[in-house]
């Protein structure tokens, strides 16, 4: 293969042979596009030399659309037709948004798709996101002078399957060929790692407006490998603003603010927070009605206010290092990403935890797009000698519901993708001809605590005794982190397949909560699991003995014998309602013992089938 790529001596491939590729950071607040030109990754600006496109979409009459700063200007005067932070709505259902106060007219058509009624008709978050992408795409076409081969689009590491799929759909709608969805922290690491060509372990600390992500990556021998990723999708710089605003309220002795007053106070808080990046203290004044308050916000006060939040991010850093099995002294460097890392307090906290100054030489708001552009350049084959490969991981575990409402994890979190895992399952009841397959995502042991991704049914299994059918489930996660699941009954070859395309995604706070809960509840879960397993086992035994009695009871047993077995069955049935593993286990043993003789008789009766086994359900 390499032979074909050798250029004639003295003639490097002409520049026009390079394919045009871009990296897009589709952000909650701001979006950017970047490309690699003459070996350097740079953002693409508009005619006014502005790189950032505000992620705001305004619908006017007759399907006319404004995107960016112009749209942002009318956000307050025309809130119903101006969609701000659409990224938060991507891959969500109306039910997911319960409790959020949003100014839009949502259409409740009982489907799982989210619709917003605008002046130009009903719009889905996918269409709205596509409008932002179109602007970025148009800008790239103009700047690069031709069609774009493809784009890498970044997503938060914590985006679930539904949110990733929605992002991809938005890109298709905008006419963009998606080369890859790339995790944002990974993109940032590429921007730094490849810029400096430093081998070793990089930690990416990404504190944005609404989310916190931390990832550990290893770069060696041309392979960029994500070792672990974690974070909190409900923690961000906006929380700092809230804390300042609350502090002002306390100082004023005012608690009952109107919505508009609170909004104004939040804006003031944000402004003063940003001023503290360069100053040691900021004077503040705020009025509620006739009451006017004046005060000073100092670095020291601000530090006290945000300390608990910063500590939380540091704890999350320690956890992700645990997952990555990396110790502090193995870390080569720490990279800061996200607007909120401009704060000196954040930098200081990170520096203290890791014992070194974090890297912030690349603009934290551009770094994600710059990294995505490099990956896009590699993926279209512009860097044949680049020998760079990126290995990413699954952020959350993927599994199936099994009997008793338990989750059997098929692919564990932080597994390198692409990956295929297969596991065999069987039927629970005699004569069962269909299996309901329920795919879930999350870390907890009970289905109810995880996020449901998809359900489908495998039909046409020929009736067999429980446990005889063999169903092989195959989970495949591709390099974009998207899952597909297939099921096949091995005896008959009956097959079923699904691309897991949930129409709604995980509520972001749910992800974090689910992840945290899985650790706190690890022990509870284990006990619950044991209990459920024992209950399932007991149910199976009861079913088997009942069937055996129905078939051979009269033929093989005297009345006294069958009464003794029935007695133990009643006892087990009663014990199953108990939530004590040991009680159920004992009742199972008792029934097994009571039916031993019956099992032996059945065995003798059907000796020609040459089955061996002691327990009645095995015969």
């Amino acid at each position, binding site marked *: 293969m390499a032979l074909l790529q050798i250029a004639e001596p003295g003639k490097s491939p002409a520049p026009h042979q390079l*394919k045009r590729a871009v990296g897009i950071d589709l952000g909650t607040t701001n979006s950017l596009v970047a490309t690699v030109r003459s070996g350097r990754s740079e953002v693409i600006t508009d005619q006014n030399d502005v790189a950032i496109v505000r992620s705001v979409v305004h619908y006017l009459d007759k399907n006319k659309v404004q995107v960016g700063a112009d749209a942002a200007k009318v956000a307050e005067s025309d809130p119903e037709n101006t969609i701000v932070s659409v990224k938060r709505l991507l891959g969500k259902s109306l039910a997911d948004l319960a409790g959020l106060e949003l100014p839009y007219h949502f259409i409740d058509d009982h489907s799982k798709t989210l619709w917003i009624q605008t002046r130009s008709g009903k719009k889905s978050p996918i269409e709205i996101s596509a409008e932002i992408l179109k602007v970025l795409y148009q800008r790239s076409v103009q700047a690069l002078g031709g069609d774009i081969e493809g784009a890498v689009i970044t997503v938060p590491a914590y985006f679930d399957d539904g949110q990733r799929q929605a992002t991809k759909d938005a890109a298709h709608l905008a006419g963009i060929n998606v*080369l*890859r969805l790339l995790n944002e922290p990974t993109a940032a690491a590429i921007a730094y790692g490849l810029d400096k060509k430093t081998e070793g372990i990089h930690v990416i600390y990404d504190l944005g407006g609404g989310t916190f992500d931390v990832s550990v990556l290893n770069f*060696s*021998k*041309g*392979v960029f*490998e994500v070792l672990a990723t974690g974070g909190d999708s409900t923690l961000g710089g906006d929380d700092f603003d809230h804390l300042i605003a609350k502090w002002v309220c306390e100082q004023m002795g005012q608690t009952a603010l109107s919505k508009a007053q609170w909004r104004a106070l939040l804006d003031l808080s944000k402004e003063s927070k940003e001023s503290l990046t360069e100053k040691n203290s900021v004077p503040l004044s705020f009025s509620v009605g006739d009451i006017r308050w004046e005060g000073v916000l100092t670095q020291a006060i601000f530090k006290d206010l945000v300390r608990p939040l910063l500590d939380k991010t540091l*704890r999350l850093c*320690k*956890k992700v290092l*645990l*997952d990555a099995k990396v110790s502090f002294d193995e870390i080569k460097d720490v990279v800061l990403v996200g607007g909120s890392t401009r704060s000196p307090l954040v930098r200081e906290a990170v520096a203290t935890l890791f014992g070194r100054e974090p890297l912030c030489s690349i603009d934290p708001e551009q770094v994600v797009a710059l990294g995505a552009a490099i990956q896009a350049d*590699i*993926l*279209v*084959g512009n860097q044949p000698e680049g*020998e760079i*490969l*990126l*290995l990413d991981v699954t952020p959350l575990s993927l599994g199936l519901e099994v009997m008793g409402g338990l989750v059997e994890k*098929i692919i564990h979190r932080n*597994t*390198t993708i*692409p*990956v*295929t*895992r*297969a*596991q*065999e399952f069987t039927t629970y009841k005699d004569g069962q001809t269909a299996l309901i397959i329920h795919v879930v995502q999350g870390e907890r042991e009970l289905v109810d605590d995880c996020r449901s991704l998809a359900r489908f049914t495998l039909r046409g299994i020929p009736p067999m005794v429980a446990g005889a059918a063999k169903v*092989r489930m*195959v989970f*495949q996660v*591709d*390099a974009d982190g998207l899952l597909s699941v297939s099921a096949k009954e091995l005896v008959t070859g009956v097959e079923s397949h699904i691309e897991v395309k949930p129409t709604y995604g995980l509520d972001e706070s749910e992800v974090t909560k689910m992840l*945290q809960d899985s*650790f*706190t509840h*690890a*022990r509870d879960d284990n006990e619950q699991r044991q209990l459920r397993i024992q209950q399932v086992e007991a149910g199976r035994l009861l079913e088997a003995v009942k069937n055996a009695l129905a078939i051979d009871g009269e033929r093989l047993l005297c009345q006294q014998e069958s009464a003794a077995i029935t007695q133990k069955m009643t006892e087990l049935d009663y014990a199953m309602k108990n939530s004590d593993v040991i009680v159920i286990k004992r009742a199972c043993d008792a029934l097994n013992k009571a039916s031993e003789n019956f099992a032996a008789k059945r065995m003798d009766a059907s000796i020609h089938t040459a089955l061996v086994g002691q327990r009645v359900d095995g015969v």
Partner: protein
Amino acid sequence: MSETSVTSGELPQNYFELFGLPQDFSVDMQQLRSSYKALLLQHHPDRFAGRDQAEQIKALQKTDWINQAHATLHSLPQRAAYLLQQKGFAVNVHANLSSDPEFLLEQLRLREMLEQIEEKKLPESALQTVMQETKLLQQKEEHYFTSLYHHLSLKNLSADENVLVQKAADSMLKLRFIEKLFEEIEALQHTLLD
């Protein structure tokens, strides 16, 4: 244990051969790591991003195979089970451990220590102690399996092959217990950070 539905394609069927490692229980982890990366650099679908779909699917299958082989050799119990399977001994990874009171007691003791850790004054250091003891247990078992495997590999095996296989299967199961114990320790480390 999950049965594979992944096929090797044109790559070597044997995991050790795939990574250029001698077929043995002790594995040079650094070499495994670097061969793994070299293989992925060659076969990962990203290397074929511009090519036709057939080539990309082929690359995806190969990567799956490489990932699966790496995961198997990376884990001690899975590696042990794989070696026994390669020798033609069917081992049931879901089997119960035949009775070994000494090992079970040691397990119980470590588990009890884990359960009480959150009530300890210095839970982190108590956890460190459990971790070190578990590591020792693992090293001991690793050595034991290694020697069992070497015996099994001898050409003129003595009559007691079945006994040896049973012992090796038990040892593999113990390694699995130990792996689970490490998982629990990790979960506790997370809990302590909350």
